[in-house]
């Protein structure tokens, strides 16, 4: 029996520092067997959560990256036409003998159509990510990444899969999931996701973390960065996020920066350190300037927090 505190601890040991909302959402998703739709700015750990969960719970990760124009042939299943062709060619002689016992043409056709299902069987079905995760022997984690990049049609296609965990294949009928996968959908909010899809999911918004949690995240990933530096870094980045930048630094930038600073053996942030490493946190030319200016303002006096 798993509790939400259990989920939190599990994630923590896996190196993902979750807050209460995230832990509760994951707990509910596991118990209620419902997908979670995660929204939030890029780089706050939406995909990271799925990866951490898959490692912590030992669910194999099945990932489906969405893009404009993705369709069922890429997401659910496809027929393996080449293989079907090859089999008909190879089985030609066998078919001849099999059909030669029949008295007339009518009987031969009947005999053949009785075996029709052979050619539309699971043998010739290519499993794409969603079907693969449904049919996996172990309970898996299905990550549908950046759903907002796909088209509306694809979203509609997902509805059946997500609410009933089944895939309808016209030639085979309905295939139900053996073990309902833990499903995570992520979206960066570049497009409104339809209400129908939202209704079928739990909704979790991950924003930028609070100071304490972000410090904890840095410390968990890079233990050799001292508490003071981590705090100073996070504090600085939080100020940078309010600067109206084109691409505000996210948690992933925090972690990159922490890595850079630990490689450089920095112990304290100074304008010079920031100026040397600014490319890690700011990704546009105008942003570079703004961040460097912020560093001049904030960090010229020695820090004592």
């Amino acid at each position, binding site marked *: 029996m798993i509790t*939400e505190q259990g989920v939190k601890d599990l994630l923590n040991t896996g190196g993902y520092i979750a807050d*209460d*909302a995230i832990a*509760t*959402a994951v*707990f*509910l998703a596991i*118990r*209620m067997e*419902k997908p979670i*739709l995660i*929204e939030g700015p890029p780089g706050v750990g939406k995909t990271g959560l799925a990866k951490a969960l898959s490692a912590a719970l030992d669910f194999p990760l099945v990932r489906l990256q969405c893009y404009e*124009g993705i369709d069922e042939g890429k997401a659910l299943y496809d027929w393996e*036409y080449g293989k079907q*062709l090859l089999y008909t060619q190879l089985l030609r002689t066998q078919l001849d003998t099999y059909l030669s016992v029949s008295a007339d043409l009518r009987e031969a056709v009947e005999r053949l159509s009785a075996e029709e299902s052979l050619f539309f069987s699971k043998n010739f079905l290519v499993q794409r990510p969603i079907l693969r995760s449904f049919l996996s022997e172990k309970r898996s984690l299905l990550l549908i990444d950046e759903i907002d990049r796909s088209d509306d049609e694809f979203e509609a296609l997902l509805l059946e899969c997500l609410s009933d965990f089944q895939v309808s294949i016209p030639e085979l009928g309905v295939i139900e999931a053996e073990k309902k996968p833990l499903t995570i959908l992520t979206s960066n*909010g*570049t*497009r*409104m996701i*339809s*209400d129908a899809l*939202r*209704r079928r*999911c*739990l*909704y*979790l*918004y991950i924003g930028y973390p609070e100071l304490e949690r972000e410090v904890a995240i840095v410390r968990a990933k890079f233990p050799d960065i001292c508490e003071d530096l981590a705090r100073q870094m996070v504090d600085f980045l939080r100020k940078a996020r309010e600067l109206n930048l*084109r691409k505000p630094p996210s948690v992933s930038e925090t972690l990159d920066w922490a890595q850079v600073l630990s490689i450089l053996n920095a112990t304290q942030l100074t304008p010079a350190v920031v100026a040397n490493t600014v490319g890690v946190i700011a990704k546009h030319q*105008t942003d570079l300037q703004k961040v460097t200016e912020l560093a001049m303002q904030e960090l010229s006096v020695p820090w004592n927090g």
Partner: protein
Amino acid sequence: MERIIARFVAALRESGIRVSPGESLDAVQALSLAGMEKRSLSRQLLRLTLVKNVNDMPLFDEVFTRFFSRFQPDVSDIDISDLMNAAIISMEGEFNYLNQQQGDDHDEPGPLIKLDSDINPEDLQELKSLTEIDPDESDGKEIVVQMKGYRGKAKAPRPMRRYVQNPLTIELNKSTGTDRGITFSPEEQAAMQDVVSRMMLRLRKDMRRMKNNQNRGKLHVIKTIQKNYRHDMVPFQVALRRKRREKPRLVVLCDVSFSVSHASRFMLLLLHTLHNQHLDVRSFIFNREVAEITEMLINMPVNDLMQAIDKGDIVDLDENSSFGQVFLAFKKRYLENLRGRPAFIILGDARNNYDEANDWVLDEIREKARYMLWLTPEERDTWKRGDCLIETYGSYCDKVEVVKTVDDLSLVVEELLRDIYADQAEPIDRKRLREAREAETYDYQDYYTRGTGGGGEPAFDPSGRSRW
């Protein structure tokens, strides 16, 4: 428990968050799974299952606090006067909120339910008198009902949304704003319809020329094999991949301040007419604030819309226009969810009233846009005078054009649409198109100088046909 949840869901719906029965079932299930000992946990559970949109979250928190505060057992040991003060303060907060939301939920008792029954009746009277002031007398119950329907939908409520449903509601608040009375006569509308439909006709001719080629892509191997099963795999019939055919998308930002009203009204009329042709246009108007009017253009009679705009119901017209602020607001609210590299048209005089220019936003818009066009009603020689920023802004645009008449306007827009189509065409088509257009140039000129009356298509198109 089910009953409490049902009542809570009802309260959420009342304040405009849309909750489906399935979601409330989820909430019950979630609560029974995780227990209800901790208030913060229950809040999270309910939020996870009932709220499906970031914008609704603050509202949810508010409703949650209000709804579940009455079950708090420790009311007795709080000083009543403190409670009163708190109630009055929150009531005032509520009142301000009411003012902003244009009478959204003023028939709700609000935080009054926090109070125990033993406060003295005079205080209660005082409190009640606060709620009785209607923030906007002219918006009756009708609008409240309509607003409720819209609050919970996918996007945050936009003040003009309510007109979409029923243009009659405009009649209800005639009292506000000054009436400048810009409307279109039926002749003007008909003339515009005429200009646009002829423009579309010409465009369609171009489109047809490239349509066939545009549709075709590479060989679709699987479909070809499938198609030729019956021919023993000899590919008699070839299946080609279809290319995604993009509709030309257009985003129009139109200044509606006094200084350009004579031009913007024709732009709006043109937009209205374009909307009825099958084009993907998103339209925004701005003065100091920016608002999307796409749906209103589709659903409302154009004169009603003009009146609404002139009265300042959609964007406030009493302020000075500020392009800088508008661009910033546009970037924040809309830029992210524009799809498919649209062409931008900005109509305005670029007179920023000495506000911050924020021209860097245009640089970002540029990255998203296929093409940027700035239309100004001012002559070139006045561009350098006063607070005109057109040279700054214009440097980000592909083209800056002066438009003074309807014909100028339609000519410019037609040119733009043509460019968009040509952009998507194969190089060979592009060449053919250009040749065809050069051959026809004279006809078009003639066409426009003849004005809007009568006039038909140039009858014969030798350049297009001689090739076939």
